């Protein structure tokens, strides 16, 4: 059986989209979406340094360097937060741009010194060029994705509890910090694995957009996660195909644009939470369509006093 380069690349971006949807679901629900962005940008200098140190374009070498500096970025964020009292977004902005700036400078200087060396195409990591993935690369991605999926499935109960109610997780005897670090590690690994296909700048979008779109389709975490995986997988495959069709367009932006298109469709069309559904005409359809489950909640009982910060909209 002949395996074409396109099939190899498609397999890679499909697996990547699935894993990103899975891990991204927890990242989004824990409001850690931007932490993935920090890791992605902070990965660039490590990737360059790994290339300089080992003079190798082997994906495992480059991505190990990327993972180390990405995690260093994440640790820097939590240290700065503790010692400067700056807010989360400010600290993340600082770390992200400093690491990314350093990474860009390194990439350029490597590009200049290795001008005649075709193997040193590090700039493809900035916006992603899945076409450069080799069979060995995809095999390594497959292993990483498989390990991630196994961990998430085995610890689904614990991660769900952590994401919903960290305090309750802790009083039941689990180490919330340990689970948090694990989730951060999984996020970092998937971000770094996504770098060759989606690139430093856009990898975080692959973590955030599919779960955000999936949230419109389900009120259950397990289903939302599966839908996020499907959307992530479809985005990866479609983006890659578009990139192959229009020669030279980078895969990263196309994957992100595809997932964004799915996000917009979900936002408009999804039952119960979608825009159309919420408009008056469509809600009235409920009485005519017996198979549509009514989702209207009973009116809330009157409260004796103002309930702080928890008045919920009844959809």
């Amino acid at each position, binding site marked *: 059986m002949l395996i074409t380069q396109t099939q190899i690349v498609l397999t890679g971006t499909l697996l990547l989209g699935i894993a990103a949807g899975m891990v991204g679901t927890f990242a989004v629900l824990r409001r850690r979406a931007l932490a993935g962005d920090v890791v992605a940008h902070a990965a660039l200098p490590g990737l360059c340094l790994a290339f300089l140190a080992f003079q190798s374009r082997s994906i495992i070498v480059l991505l190990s360097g990327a993972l180390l500096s990405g995690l260093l970025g994440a640790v820097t964020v939590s240290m700065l937060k503790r010692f400067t009292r700056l807010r989360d977004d400010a600290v993340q902005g600082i770390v992200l741009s400093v690491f990314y700036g350093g990474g860009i400078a390194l990439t350029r200087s490597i590009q200049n010194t290795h001008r005649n060396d075709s193997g040193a195409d590090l700039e493809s990591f900035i916006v992603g060029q899945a076409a450069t993935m080799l069979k060995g690369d995809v095999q390594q991605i497959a292993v990483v994705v498989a390990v991630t999926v196994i961990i998430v499935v085995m610890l689904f109960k614990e991660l769900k*509890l952590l994401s919903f109610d960290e305090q309750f997780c802790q009083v039941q005897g689990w180490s919330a910090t340990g689970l948090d670090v694990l989730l951060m590690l999984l996020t970092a690994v998937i971000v770094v694995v996504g770098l060759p296909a989606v690139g430093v700048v856009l990898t975080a979008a692959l973590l955030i957009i599919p779960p955000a779109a999936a949230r419109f389709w389900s009120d259950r975490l397990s289903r939302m996660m599966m839908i996020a995986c499907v959307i992530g997988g479809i985005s990866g495959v479609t983006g890659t195909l578009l990139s192959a069709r229009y020669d030279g367009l980078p895969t990263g932006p196309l994957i992100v644009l595809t997932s964004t298109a799915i996000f917009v469709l979900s936002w408009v069309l999804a039952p119960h939470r979608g825009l159309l559904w919420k408009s008056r005409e469509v809600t009235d359809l409920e009485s005519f369509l017996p198979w549509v489950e009514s989702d209207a909640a009973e009116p809330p009982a009157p*409260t004796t006093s103002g*309930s702080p910060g928890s008045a919920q909209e009844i959809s």
Partner: protein
Amino acid sequence: MTESAENTNSAIFDIHDMTVAYDRRPVLWNIDLTLRNPGLVAIVGPNGAGKSTMIRAAMGLVPMVSGAVRAWGAPISSQLTRIGYVPQRGSVDWDFPISVFETVLMGTYGSLGWFRRPGGVQRDLTMQCLERVGMQDFAQRQIGQLSGGQQQRVFLARALAQQAELYFMDEPMAGVDAATERVVFKLLQSLSDEGRTIVVVHHDLRTVSEYFDEVVLLNVRIVTSGPVATTFTPANLQATYGGRLSILDTMADAVQKQVETE
């Protein structure tokens, strides 16, 4: 309900010399508290007295500057499976994609431990707990579609599913409707009748003597604690709330009169 053999000398719950500070400002100072008898215990004090912080620190959710917390004679961290918790309602995201049933099922996670999935036993228990708070018909609802009082009942059901002997509840009656308040008190009473100990952060001074066995008066330090009949006295309340209490009473009376005339 306590199956395990217990040293009769050891208290159910004991805080020794607890001090907690935020940004070097002490919010709890030198807390000593011992509970020896099962029953309903109210923690009462003005805003900022550290009521929530005390139970949160006792369970290890807030770091202590100094102090030791023991339950049944052992460090509390080793007794967490025997302890239940009802956090404040505002502490979670109610838009989270989870149903009422799944939320209550989380109460059984502690006894399951790592990796094990909830099975039939846990599901049956969850349904019983929902019935006990009258929320069985809402099992498949997403939690954001509930009223404040219903959300509070879900949290209580989750704590029931923990099947604990000692409960900490953080303002379970805050901002709930009258129906829920009656359900909650009936539930607390039945838990107490089963021999459990329930420590409740409580804000409504009028209902303390009606429902609780013991009261802890707190304002950064423990002013006093003991049986409601002997401890919940005007003099002690004056010492806890300072001059503010009489102002509160005057205001409450004024509001009451206004309501009656309308």
